């Protein structure tokens, strides 16, 4: 336990912070080398032994070596490489057979890999996308050598301009080639079947027909092809297909598939689409003015984080309820559910190293972390309820446990007038010299002095040109023409106070 000894050896200050904090530091390992997003974290009792494990789809430090890690306590239990980067991980109960242990689904590329008892069980591939019939036709012709490459290119380009169904990768590659390479390419590839395949961008689980904790769930996939698929857990067939105006990035579901469900999908074009059962397209669309960074459903409110550093709350019909501004960019969001107290709150990891917990608009708590948090997960871990697991930008792993006695009262965050109100204004101080000079001016300023000219507003330069008059302190003789400025009186003994200078310097030397 890396953090525990450090907190013990901390000075009194550290301990008092611990005492007042609602969280126990269970583990912090900055060298854990886990780089992941919230969508690839899942907590489940994979072996059916009552001890919940953490499943992490690790993307690796540079997105190269992706692997599936299963953690128990602070240690990594198993680690297995993955063929492609995991987009999402979810645990769900597949069937009613005993033992009722959840299966693990990992979405990666165009496939979903399902593990049971951490052993590979099934691989589901997304169905191929329909091809453009014209394109198919053209390549058939090419196969039979009935068409030459140039014509093929022209026809394909024509299709690309206008057609609804996009071209396959093969055609796109072909269109990029130089004339000389076209022949070779066609010969190499004409025999192959054309394919269009899409990838999974996000995944979540939806209960099938019962709302119990241990009921069977379906998988909901979002694809790059702007579609949502609902898969049957037992046979892995596509139960429903819905289309969206843009590619989904985050998904939130509520309800049961067989009865009634609501799906909220945050898309890449900055919209949040809300779909209901039996609707082919979105019923409501919330347009954000920035990109959504996270989507969490808390009771009946959809909480959305946006790249403008703010959290918004929306009803499920799309009406904005509230907005809260964050002090830094939001990196990740997740749901915090404390079943015992019936508390549901939103956790947001910010770029300045804070994790803020909000219930509606009120800030419940702020957790300071040594590094910015990139993924969050809250739930039962090991045998401990209410554990917060976070991974940081530098690849560290942090585990905190919510104290049993911790109660989230409203107003646990900042309240009252801003602290800046207490700091005094730094008014520049005047020296004794200044005060003396003001007295002197008052005494000497009045007298048969030269009348200041009223053309002052046209010739400020005149002030600067008049030479300093070495007169005694006090009254100076009247000058003819009354064209000298009165401040000429302040010449002489007032060292440095050149009154022709701009007013700010009258007492310059005393600053």
């Amino acid at each position, binding site marked *: 336990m890396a953090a525990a000894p450090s907190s013990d050896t901390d000075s009194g200050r550290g301990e008092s912070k611990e005492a007042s904090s609602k969280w126990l530091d269970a583990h912090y390992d900055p060298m854990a080398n886990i780089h992941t997003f919230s969508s690839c974290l899942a907590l489940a009792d994979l072996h059916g032994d009552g001890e919940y494990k953490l499943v992490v789809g690790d993307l690796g430090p540079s997105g190269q070596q992706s692997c599936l890690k299963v953690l128990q306590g602070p240690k990594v239990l198993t680690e297995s490489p993955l063929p492609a980067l995991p987009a999402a991980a979810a645990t769900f109960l597949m069937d009613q057979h005993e033992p009722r242990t959840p299966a693990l689904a990992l979405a990666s590329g165009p496939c979903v890999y399902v593990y049971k008892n951490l052993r590979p069980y099934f691989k589901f591939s997304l169905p191929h996308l329909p091809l453009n019939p014209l394109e198919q036709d053209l390549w058939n012709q090419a196969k039979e050598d009935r068409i030459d490459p140039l014509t093929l290119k022209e026809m394909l380009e024509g299709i690309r301009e206008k057609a*609804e169904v996009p071209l396959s990768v093969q055609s796109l590659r072909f269109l990029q080639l130089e004339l000389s390479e076209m022949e070779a390419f066609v010969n190499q590839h004409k025999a192959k079947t054309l394919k269009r395949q899409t990838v999974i961008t996000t995944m979540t689980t939806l209960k099938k027909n019962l709302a119990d904790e241990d009921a069977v769930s379906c998988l909901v996939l979002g694809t790059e092809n702007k579609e949502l698929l609902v898969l049957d857990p037992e046979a892995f067939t596509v139960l429903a297909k819905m289309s969206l105006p843009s590619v989904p990035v985050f998904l939130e579901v509520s309800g049961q598939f067989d009865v009634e469900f609501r799906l909220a999908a945050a898309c890449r074009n900055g919209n949040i689409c809300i779909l209901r059962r039996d609707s082919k397209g979105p019923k409501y669309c919330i347009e954000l003015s920035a990109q959504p960074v996270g989507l969490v459903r808390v009771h009946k409110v959809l909480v959305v984080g946006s790249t403008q550093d703010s959290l918004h709350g929306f009803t499920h019909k799309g009406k904005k309820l509230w907005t809260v501004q964050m002090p830094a960019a939001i990196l990740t969001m997740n749901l915090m559910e404390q079943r015992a107290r019936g508390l549901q709150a939103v956790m947001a990891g910010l770029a300045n190293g804070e994790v803020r917990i909000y219930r509606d608009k009120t800030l419940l708590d702020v957790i300071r972390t040594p590094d910015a948090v990139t993924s969050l997960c809250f739930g039962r871990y090991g045998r401990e309820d209410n554990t917060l697991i976070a991974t940081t930008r530098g690849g560290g792993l942090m585990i905190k446990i919510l104290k049993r006695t911790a109660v989230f009262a409203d107003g646990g965050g900042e309240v009252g007038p*801003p602290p800046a109100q207490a700091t*005094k204004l730094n008014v*520049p101080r005047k020296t004794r010299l*200044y005060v003396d000079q003001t007295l002197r001016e008052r005494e000497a300023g009045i007298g*048969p002095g030269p*009348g200041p000219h009223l053309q002052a507003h046209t010739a*400020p330069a005149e002030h600067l040109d008049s030479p300093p008059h070495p007169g005694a302190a006090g009254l100076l003789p009247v000058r003819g023409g009354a064209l000298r400025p*009165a401040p000429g009186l302040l010449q002489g003994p007032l060292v440095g106070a050149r*009154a022709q200078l701009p007013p700010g310097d009258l007492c310059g030397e005393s600053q």
Partner: protein
Amino acid sequence: MAEERTVMRTQLPTSAESQNPQLKKALEFPILEKQNWLIHLHYIHKDYEACKAVIKEQLRETQGLCEYALYVQALIFRLEGNIQDSLELFQTCAVLSPQCADNLKQVARSLFLLGKHKAATEVYNEAAKLNQKDWEICHNLGVCYIYLKQFNKARDQLHHALHLNRHDLTYIMLGKIHLLEGNLDKAIEIYKKAVEFSPENTELLTTLGLLYLQLGIYQKAFEYLGNALTYDPTNYKAILAAGSMMQTHGDFDVALTKYRIVACAVPESPPLWNNIGMCFFGKKKYVAAISCLKRANYLAPFDWKILYNLGLVHLTMQQYASAFHFLSAAINFQPKMAELYMLLAVALTNLEDTENAKRAYAEAVHLDKCNPLVNLNYAVLLYNQGQKREALAQYQEMEKKVNLLKDSSSLEFDSEMVEVAQKLGAALHVGEALVWTKPAKDSRSQHRTTSASKAACFQQPLGSNQALGQAMSSAAAYRKLPSGEERPQMKNLSYT
């Protein structure tokens, strides 16, 4: 986990390829959109370095065909300020998928950022053909037309955008058009609708408050500014405006507390230091006032209001020469303002230059339309100089203005001014013709009516200070107010 790996391998669709590594590369084209989700996640996390790395990798693998990678790369270029490259990449994307309105919109936006508004409108129109009901296109078209100064078209587009989908930004733009055209009332209407739609937007609330302030409807202004402050207690504009209103009501301490908040956030703001200075002035801490005003002047040497205030405070401190200096500088910047000339004349009077003082007063009276104080002070000076007839003329002018003001608005007159006027009236044997019956409200409100017609600033440094300043000048005049016998005595007073 070896078994896992083999299991996975056998489930790969084209098992034949694994035997022939050369064919494998040629046969299996990688899916273009393979890592789009990762690029997107890095982008929204503002992790641009990682994003660029993934983009580079993807473009290399797909030989430049991955449209989303190019798109995000262009977006990052734009964020870094490299708009030209961004434009080129967006054009490439538009070529790769011509049916996509998004790419055209981004091309248009890049053109807009490069300042080519006309070209931008053309591309937006093209995009509109592809996607009719896009509020973003309408909104951006409206903004382009604003820059092209075609306000009618801009208004149409923005209304259309609002029709499609209400957004705060569109409301703000519409409001700006109305303000650019000088139509304050319509602007207020628009902002009110916007606030109805999104009641927590501090920018809207503050702008609305400031507009009401400009129009002189202080109650509503204070309401909206107060609302803005409840949602965001550190909002600079709202605090400054609210503070200035508090100052006009004499709540200097409260205003100072509020200013403290902003002083931490924006320490180098000339209007802020100006207002702080005038708070100290109101609390009679003149040296502190001068320090703050000098700082404000240092930050904004061309601001006539700060110079005016400096002149005023120096008059109060009896530093007439310095006051003259500041006031003449202020006149340089604001040559058509009667009050400046009046204060200048007061300074000159105290510097014993009556000839020029009279000229200053003459100029002030010539420029002023509605402030009776100018006439009053001139009358006092003339009386002191023994020119009773001219004094009487000025007194009558003042009466006219007072009557005008009484009729047009329920103003209060500064008590000291009333006193002086009555004394002068008695001395001139004018009698009690003039009735100052309105309940005592400060003559600061008088000044407000004149300033309302000027381009409004939310600074309002002149509020209470004006009254005090006038009180000072009239007090000075009062000291000189003769009743024949006191005259020589008066002369002595001026030397102390």
